[in-house]
């Protein structure tokens, strides 16, 4: 296990180095941030002074070495726009995104698994057909459109939920969270649902397929033959066995939501890291974009690791294999 972890670690360092290079030069080629930062009223001397101050007058490779030097010391650079360390800026926005991602994943599991299992157990019933049709819609309509529809329905026509923003937050261990107040929750619900719709559809499909397959297995037939209640057969024998693919996919999707909830965060003006990323790309705030992608790669590596660990808890065969 240790050797495996070390190897994994080495791989991720390599991936991060490659990412740093691609992102740095990619953004370098897009344009010069100074053209957006300075006021057009500034005269040429002031423009040049600003360029020097940000170190943008140096050739690209020198800027790149400066950046790498900082990276080695754990310094991801300082935002051109906000004059705040990029990492600090991202971390201050992270709680909002994590909250959104976790609620979305919870919604996906508590709605998706039972609905999918129902559709798997009673594939011919009209309810199941409705569930499956709904999941197709959830899959195939674009995320931003769903978001706007949710806003139109819940916020504009029925006026039951706010159209965006974060609402009231409470500090827990110094981290502002919004799921502890009614106002905060009401702001959180729509964006979370927007993120969750696709995941719910995905989990429904996985659970239905899993249920249909597992339901025919010998051990389920045997459990029924033993006279176990239908509830126990479903909740223990079927549920546990369909959860492995669900956990894998949900784990990866969690990473996806944290890193790329850009669309939802923009539509709902949710102050998470996705919105920060989009704003920073728009302003060519290179340090923030690079730091963001570095963190994202790091996070995906970690999530994959956790998913592997959860597997082994769910499936004793994997555990045994590793032990042996």
């Amino acid at each position, binding site marked *: 296990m240790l050797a495996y972890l070390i190897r994994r670690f080495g791989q991720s360092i390599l991936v991060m180095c490659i990412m740093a290079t691609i992102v740095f030069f990619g953004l370098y080629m*897009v344009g010069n941030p100074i053209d957006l930062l300075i*006021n057009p*009223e500034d005269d040429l001397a*002031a*423009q040049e002074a600003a360029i020097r101050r940000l170190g943008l007058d140096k050739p690209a490779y020198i800027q790149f070495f400066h950046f790498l030097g900082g990276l080695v010391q754990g310094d991801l650079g300082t935002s051109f726009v906000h004059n705040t360390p990029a990492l600090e800026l991202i971390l201050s926005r992270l709680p909002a995104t994590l909250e959104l991602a976790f609620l979305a994943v919870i919604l996906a599991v508590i709605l998706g698994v039972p609905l999918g299992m129902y559709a798997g157990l009673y594939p011919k019933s009209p309810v199941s057909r409705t569930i499956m049709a709904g999941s197709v819609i959830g899959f195939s309509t674009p995320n931003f459109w769903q978001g706007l529809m949710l*806003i139109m329905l819940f*916020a504009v026509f029925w006026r039951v939920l706010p*159209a965006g923003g974060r609402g009231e937050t409470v500090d827990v261990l110094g981290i502002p969270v919004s799921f502890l107040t009614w106002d905060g929750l009401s702001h959180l619900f729509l964006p979370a649902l927007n993120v969750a719709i696709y995941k719910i559809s995905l989990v429904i499909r996985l659970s239905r397929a899993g249920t249909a397959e597992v339901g025919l297995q010998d051990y389920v037939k045997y459990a029924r033959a033993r006279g176990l209640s239908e509830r126990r057969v479903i909740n223990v024998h079927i549920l546990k066995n369909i959860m492995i693919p669900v956990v894998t996919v949900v784990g990866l999707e969690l990473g996806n939501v944290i890193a790329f909830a850009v669309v939802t965060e923009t539509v709902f003006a949710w102050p998470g890291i996705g919105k*920060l990323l989009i704003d920073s790309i728009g302003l060519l705030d290179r340090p923030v974009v690079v730091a963001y992608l570095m963190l994202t790669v790091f996070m995906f590596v970690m999530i994959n690791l956790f998913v592997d660990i959860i597997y082994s808890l769910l499936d004793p065969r994997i555990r045994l294999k590793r032990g042996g």
Partner: protein
Amino acid sequence: MNRVITKAALAVGLAIAAGPVASETLTAGFASEPTSIDPLYHNLGPNNMIRKHMFEALIGEDESLGIRPLLAESWENPDESTWLFHLKKGVKFHDGSDFTARDFLYTVCRIPNVPNSPSSFAGFIKRVETIEAVDDMTIKVVTPGPYPLLLSDFASFGVISASAAGHDGPVTYDKDGCPDIASYPATELYNSGEAAMGTGPYKFVEYSQGERVVMTRFDDYWGEAPHWSDLVIRPISNDGARVAALLAGDVDIIEKPPAQDLERLRADPSTDVVQGASSRVIYLHFDHVGDPTPGVSGTDGKNPFMDVRVRKAVSLAIDRALIVDKIMGGLAVPARQLTPDFMRGTNPDIALETPNLEEAKRLLAEAGYPNGFGLVLGTPNDRYINDAKIAQAVAQMLTRAGIRTEVDAMTKSVFFSRRNKYEFSLYMAGWGSGSAGMASPLRALVATQDKDAGMGGTNRGRYSNPELDAVIAEAFVTVDAEAHDALLRRASEMVVEDVAILPLHYEVTPWALRAGLTIAPRADQHTVLTTVRPVN
């Protein structure tokens, strides 16, 4: 045009006739957010907008960008290079301390000392030789020579409190570093609110980046108490989301409602649209630097825009009224000069041009291009109202005249970088002027590029005309307002005659509000929430 002005005037009238002080919160959805609360950190529209609520400048600018007293009650010129400013008495900062000449000196001292400022305010104090406090309430400013735009410069930055910035002793100003001040506060101290003490009608409550800026009424404000007890400003950059927030009642007012939603917002009984003329001109700039030019084909390497007949032909081929009517839906006013007629220095004798396709073709033929040529028109597609659509329309009009034009539209970050590298033979951009009026675009867009003189900073067509430069230079050393404006008008005429640059139209700025509210539109397109009032 008239309708627009009337509506603006109406809004101003309503604002003045506003009712008693209420304890209500106004929530606004802004299209872009400030990069800091520090009023001296970044000279950028969204920052300056927030600044106007909390930090007042020495000199004020009214809605149509006329100069008016603010922290300075009055001023006089003992001679052409000396200015005496008499400060308003009884003005308090948000921490309760009195505003005196020392605070203004401290502000000027700090301007060049804001670390990592992406766009400094230093340009506004560059023409100042010495500043001294004659007494607590009088400031004497000496410029190296006559300089007429000092008032506009001093209207451009907010005054901070010296004590709140952590400086207790006296302040003396020195161009090369103020001797009494050991260190200056960091921008973070303003973002946290600790040092954010201005004299404005609202004081700092909260700034959470990406989420909101909250301000509350300053009870000891020297002027008329503002209508709203609290202001909440939420950045909602997505157009659709901003409109939805207004329709849902989450916010009371939004900036920059998308043009295609205006009809609907007007028709909806729960919302209203207020619009006002702005000083922002949308223009086309030609490449004025010899052969070859990057975006022209079919001329054997020649740059056709070196010939004034070609530039005239381009101007005649474009039907500005049609663009205003069909593309802008009335959200613009056709232009021929670089500032609209209510700004100082605009020449009232220059009439709009009537488009004339035949004459355009004739001029092209006369210049040696009977079959026209190929052209790439560069434009941003997310910077100005309907920018890419305008460029498309211009391209079609030019193509009809024989200049086969393709539009190269791109996001603003890419566009401005490429433009500043001179990659276009013809590009579209915009320019918003402040209280300096015509002097601002003349200096920045058409004066010959000259780093030391501070001229031609955004003259990315590299137009150069020594005669024009001489008139502009003279205007910049003429303090007498009437004589200064006369020179600006003369220069504007020269620009139009030589078609140095091609103004298309002035933007009209819309705001969408909850029904029953109105706002006084500002010509600088800034959203200042103190001017938002109930209609009755």
